[in-house]
């Protein structure tokens, strides 16, 4: 696989498009602690890109940099061919980057449908007054947004709970609702922070299937974090491996699997 090509062919024979996001020499510090040390990698259109690494490797920090929750001290984030100025998370969302959280951040007081509808907020354009009285264009827009939301609810097989308040749902379903809300934004880049954390085998299989289906059906570019090696290797097209804030590997699952540094990190070889 060549780094600068416009496209590449994955291990399972799919062709992946050009670079949509590029992290250039990102360094992130909290006080004196360097959570991310000079990391560069790219995300290409239509691929599933995984960021893996042991606990505390800086994976979530990386995702938070991409989604604007953290601002790195050094380095640049390039998005769609241009450097991105420091942005607030809501501005990043407006640019078409949706995300989920490791510890689930849903609107607990709202129903599943309302939660998914909030994912459409960046697509709502009509004026305040028009919407208050729900006329004409505003009404058509509402109906269109509702259709997208319902389609995604069907897709993720959560029709049965669409009117249920989220607070009543079990953990596994909450994770799925959060994915639905992120998808409702029809993102050009979808960030998943440990989508399978805390799930049992069956739930993990379901979630893996949904992630693959989303990528396949909508062509959504996905960047995900996971520390379960097995799951990641099956899901992803390319993998970045982090350890202690540094990048120790980058490539297809097979390349990464045979990388000595990665093996050491996972098997726990002593650090100098």
């Amino acid at each position, binding site marked *: 696989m060549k780094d600068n090509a416009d496209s590449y062919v994955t291990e399972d024979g799919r062709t992946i498009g050009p670079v949509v996001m590029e992290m250039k020499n990102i360094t992130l510090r909290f006080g004196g602690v360097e959570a991310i040390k000079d990391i560069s990698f790219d995300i290409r259109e239509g691929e599933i890109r995984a960021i893996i690494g042991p606990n505390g490797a800086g994976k979530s920090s990386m995702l938070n940099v991409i989604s604007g929750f953290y601002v790195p001290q050094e380095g640049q984030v390039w998005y769609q061919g241009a450097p991105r100025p420091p942005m607030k*998370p*809501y501005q990043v969302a407006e640019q078409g980057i949706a995300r989920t959280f490791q510890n689930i951040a849903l609107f607990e*007081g709202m129903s599943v449908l309302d939660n998914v509808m909030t994912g459409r*907020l960046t697509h709502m354009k009509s004026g305040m007054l028009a*919407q208050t009285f729900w006329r004409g264009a505003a009404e058509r827009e509402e109906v269109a947004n509702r259709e997208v939301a319902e389609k995604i609810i069907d897709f993720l097989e959560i029709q049965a709970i669409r009117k249920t*308040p989220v607070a009543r749902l079990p953990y596994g379903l909450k994770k799925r609702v959060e994915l639905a809300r992120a998808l409702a934004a029809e993102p050009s880049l979808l960030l998943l922070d440990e989508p399978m954390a805390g799930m049992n085998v069956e739930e993990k299989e379901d979630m893996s299937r949904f992630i693959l289906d989303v990528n396949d059906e909508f062509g959504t570019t996905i960047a995900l974090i996971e520390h379960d090696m097995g799951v990641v290797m099956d899901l992803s097209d390319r993998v970045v491996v982090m350890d202690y804030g540094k990048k120790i590997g980058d490539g297809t699952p097979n390349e990464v699997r045979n990388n000595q540094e990665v093996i050491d990190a996972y098997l726990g070889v002593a650090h100098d």
Partner: protein
Amino acid sequence: MNEQLAFTIEVFLNGLMAGVLYALVALGFVLIYKASGIFNYAQGVMALFAAMTLVGIQNGQVPFAHLINAIFGTDVHKFGWHIHSFLAIILTVFVMIALAWAVQRFVFRHLVGQEPIILFMATIGLAYFLEGIADLMWGSELKALNVCAAEGTCLPQGMNMWLEGTTYEAFGYGFFIDNLDIVASIIAVLLVGGLVMFAQYTKQGRAMRAVADDHQAALSVGVSLNFIWILVWSLAGFVALVAGIMWGAKSGVQFSLSLIALKALPVLMLGGFTSIPGAIVGGLIIGVGEKLFEFLIGAPFLGGATENWFAYMLALLFLVFRPQGLFGEKIIERV
């Protein structure tokens, strides 16, 4: 028809209308509390500030006249014009929006993520600051708030007639009802209806509910917290203005206006801090309850003046038996 019963009905109706005003003030609290978790002690002072600003603009007063005169040795007090009530109300709305922006920009933006008690203390500070600024801007004397400040500046012509108390004939008995109360009730109903529609159907309303529920999640779906907070403070300012106009038109614009905030507290205990319909129903229950209690039990048996404490007693009972209020969100906790 029995005279006593008819009189009771009259008391009931008057209580209902007093309740509308309580509800309006409580509404301001609910809006801000829902979206930002801040218990805004300054809501009452905001009503006072809004009413004073309205009167000042109507009468063409020069803001900060005393300060300007003291510094520059001038003697200006008035611009010498009267502004049409309708225009004055619109200008006051803009002042309240500016206030909302300033409050967010200079106070709460620096306190994001602080403990609720710290935010609460900040609103106490805000209350006293606003009170002082209102005095400095418009002077501290009692002012009459007339929807007709001078000839030709009336809202619709002949509004005065509509605002005076009138006796209505029904069941062969004359009910005395303040027309102002009826106007106030209608406006309050429209306002609440509008707010509910706004929260339910608009992008900003949805975003408002999202922010009220979870900040992090709201950010991730593209909601600017800062914008929403300015929006709710503006809405609360607008509600305060309406309450200020109603109350001010009744008993003049004076410092005691800011104390109606304290009457809103029991309303919130009843209705729940997070429910818009709750604020309305709570307000009506307190309004009717205190008037009827005074009339039926207080005056004949307890020596009167029960209106002062009835609301708080009712709130206390609610706190004991239903702490989330009538409509407050039930606390669901998974274990």
